[in-house]
């Protein structure tokens, strides 16, 4: 029950942002702001993964967490290399701030859980998080990115994160 409420929180936070106000519309972010959101989202998932490695004893959770660190770091490396090539710096924005604020709350809650309670929370949150971010990338970012190379990297990223979403789904099922 608690888990569901929290997942709803993550989900709703993103949906509100996506559906609502013109001022805070992810579809209106520029390429450098979008890059900042993606970099932030990657780092949040890496932080969740480190928490999982520290608190979980389940080998499947560890395997997933290590994959999250490996893949999100790889994407970040590519993103930074591309920004360097384009001589551009990512720009902080409302969505990056919102994602970070949400993640801090979740990390606070997760770090108090142990055993199966932690595993279930982590797995469900990974599924919800990847779903939410993938929706954002597919519907708000990719159609609006102007730079062709940045767009290509986001398309590659989306394929990776969709595999993560499937993996998270398997992990959630395996914990029931």
């Amino acid at each position, binding site marked *: 029950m608690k888990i569901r409420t929290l997942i709803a929180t993550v989900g709703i936070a993103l949906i509100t942002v996506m559906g609502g106000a013109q001022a805070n519309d992810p579809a209106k972010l520029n390429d450098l702001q979008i890059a900042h959101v993606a970099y932030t989202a990657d780092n949040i998932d890496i932080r969740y993964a480190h928490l999982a490695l520290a608190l979980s004893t389940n080998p499947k959770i560890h395997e997933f967490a290590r994959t999250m660190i*490996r893949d999100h770091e*790889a*994407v970040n490396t590519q993103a930074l290399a591309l920004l360097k090539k384009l001589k551009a710096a990512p720009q902080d924005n409302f969505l990056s701030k919102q994602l970070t604020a949400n993640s801090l709350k979740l990390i606070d809650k997760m770090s108090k859980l142990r055993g199966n309670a932690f595993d279930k929370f982590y797995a469900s949150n990974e599924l919800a998080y990847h779903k939410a971010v993938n929706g954002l990338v597919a519907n708000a970012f990719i159609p609006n990115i102007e730079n062709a190379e940045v767009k290509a990297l986001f398309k590659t990223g989306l394929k990776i994160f969709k595999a993560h979403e499937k993996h998270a789904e398997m992990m959630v099922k395996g914990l029931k």
Partner: protein
Amino acid sequence: MRPFQMQRREVVGWAAAAIAAAILPFTIPVFAETNRKPVTHIVDITDFVFVPKSLEVRPGDRITWVNKDIVPHTATADDKSWDTGALKPNERKTITVTKKLLGGYFCRFHPSMKAKIATQK
């Protein structure tokens, strides 16, 4: 008598040719298949898919997995009896086909990635 003998020889000749023609198309390819030189099959790992997903091989062949993605992958037997180990972007690993390679395999890092290896007929 002579013309008859000639005829016989001709008949025999034709018969042999006919038999050879009938048998050769079957025997030669089978012979060539079983004794063909081992070949190397390439499996590309691209966009989180093993390509081809289903591969037909013969013992002694080699399989080379090439990682064309920006993240590491593995090719690992479903029963874990063999494993390429982590393949970094642009890395490749070749394994010679033995019986134990036949069957399903997956990526240890991304278990939704699945493929299989079967015997070529």
